[in-house]
């Protein structure tokens, strides 16, 4: 949209064109551009699905492995109306979401608190950074069997896995955000009379917030990964279990259907997060076309 307004303002108008006309032309161009973008987005999706469907039906690809869109849609329909072989779909989705959300919330809160604390304390940061590096070098998914052994097949093991997936990402960004806080701004707050705690709360954390939010965007996806990998390794419910069972019975459509569900949920979460961020970050400069 920015480009569209740029285009129109850089275009030469004949002398005597009124502001209203220019604005109308700009609005029209912006609408036109939005429609074009939307058209191509939909067109590419449709083309992809149609190609997939035909390729499978004409046996260019083996539908046994690659399924086809119609079969996936049918499976989704069955799951939502009749439930899965393991019980209602909604319950599985609920379990996976519960694990992801708890892991996400606890992981990000812990990440922010410890990130800010170490960011503010150079000595502690120097001491602990080596341990954090060591633990961070472990690929998180290998912890899944350990957590399941210790915490059992239920909620706790998946939450723990989602937690470790989220924690390090948020921790790193919070830490970096604190370190990047503007020196003049900190000096200003101190001279204005801020105590250490006031400084942390009303200067350091707000200025690290854009860093923290950048990590929250990716880390909900990570929380879902944690939950699902945990469910693969051992569980009684959850989307990960559905995928596992579909795999065991060579049900390609079932696997893709589960992927579609996770995709939709992750997109929804991303959308929510963007909304919250926009609300919190209303102080940030907006591109010109939005303020006008």
């Amino acid at each position, binding site marked *: 949209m920015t480009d569209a307004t740029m285009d129109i303002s850089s275009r030469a108008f004949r002398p005597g064109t009124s502001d209203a006309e220019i604005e109308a032309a700009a609005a029209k161009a912006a609408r036109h551009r939005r429609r074009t973008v939307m058209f191509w987005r939909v067109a590419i999706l449709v083309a992809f699905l149609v190609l997939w469907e035909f390729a499978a039906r004409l046996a260019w690809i083996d539908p046994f492995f690659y399924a086809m869109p119609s079969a996936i849609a049918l499976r989704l329909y069955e799951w939502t109306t009749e439930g899965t072989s393991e019980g209602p779909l909604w319950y599985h989705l609920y379990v996976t979401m519960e694990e992801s959300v708890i892991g996400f919330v606890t992981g990000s809160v812990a990440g922010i608190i410890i990130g800010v604390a170490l960011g503010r304390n150079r000595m502690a940061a120097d001491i602990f950074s080596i341990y954090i590096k060591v633990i961070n070098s472990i690929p998180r998914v290998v912890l899944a069997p350990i957590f399941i052994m210790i915490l059992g097949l239920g909620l706790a093991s998946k939450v723990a896995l989602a937690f470790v997936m989220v924690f390090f990402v948020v921790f790193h960004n919070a830490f970096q955000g604190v370190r990047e806080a503007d020196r003049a701004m900190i000096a200003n707050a101190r001279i204005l*009379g801020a105590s250490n705690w006031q400084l942390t709360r009303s200067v350091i954390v707000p200025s690290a917030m854009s860093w923290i939010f950048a990590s929250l965007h990716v880390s909900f996806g990570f929380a879902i990964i944690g939950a699902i990998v945990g469910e693969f390794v051992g569980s009684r419910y959850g989307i990960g279990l559905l995928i596992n069972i579909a795999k065991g019975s060579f049900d390609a459509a079932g696997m893709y259907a589960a992927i579609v569900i996770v995709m939709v949920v992750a997109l929804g979460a991303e959308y929510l997060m963007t909304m919250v961020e926009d609300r919190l970050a*209303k*102080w940030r400069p907006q591109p010109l076309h939005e303020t006008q």
Partner: protein
Amino acid sequence: MAHEKTTPAIELINVSRRFLSPTGKSLTALRDFTMTVERGEFVAVVGPTGCGKSTTLNLITGLASPSAGEVRVMGGPVKGIDPRIGFVFQTDALFPWRTVIENVMAGPLFRGKPRPQAQASARDWLARVGLSRFEQHYPHQLSGGMRKRVALAQTFINGPEILLMDEPFSSLDVQTRVLMHEELLRLWSEARASVVFVTHDLEEAIALADKVYVLTAGPATVKSVYTIDLPRPRVVADIRYEQSFIDYSRTIWADLKEEVETSYARAAA
């Protein structure tokens, strides 16, 4: 009590300041630096770029401590950050996530004033700098000159007895700058604070100050001190065309030029 009033606002006595470069080498920013600022006096400090002008201010705030010598504020040694000090920064040091009024309220709130009182006081100060209409704006929505006025209100609201300014107007265009000079002199004449104004702009220094300190190329020490005997109140926009102003300018510049050239030659070498 009577003698307390007569002690200078700021004294730097044979102060040196060294700091370590990232490679571990010791660098000297200030050496044998002596300066006295009387109460209510407006002192400007000029010197070549990067000579250590800002370091003097950090020593007075207590954000940095001297390697040798003594810094006294209001007759007492500097221990930590003194609440009687206000500081206006060169760069934008406003809090971008707070509205204009919340920025101005920050000082009183940090110092434990109740919110309604802080708010009333902030309104008052915004009116004095002519920004009442912009209370609910965010800093990014204001022009550079307006942001500086917010910064002035944010500093003055704490009622500082000592005001330190580190090239505060260097990022503004010439016209806005003259307006800000007028604004500053007006606020200063009401508050009667002692001011140390660091700048590399000699004309700005002469137009504003009672005394101009010329520093040598780094490590900085005082090269000479000039008393500017121009009548107050001054009209900054016009004063630069007066003969006495031009004479001061010429004399001090001859002095400063040597240092600027030394500093330039060193940088080029």
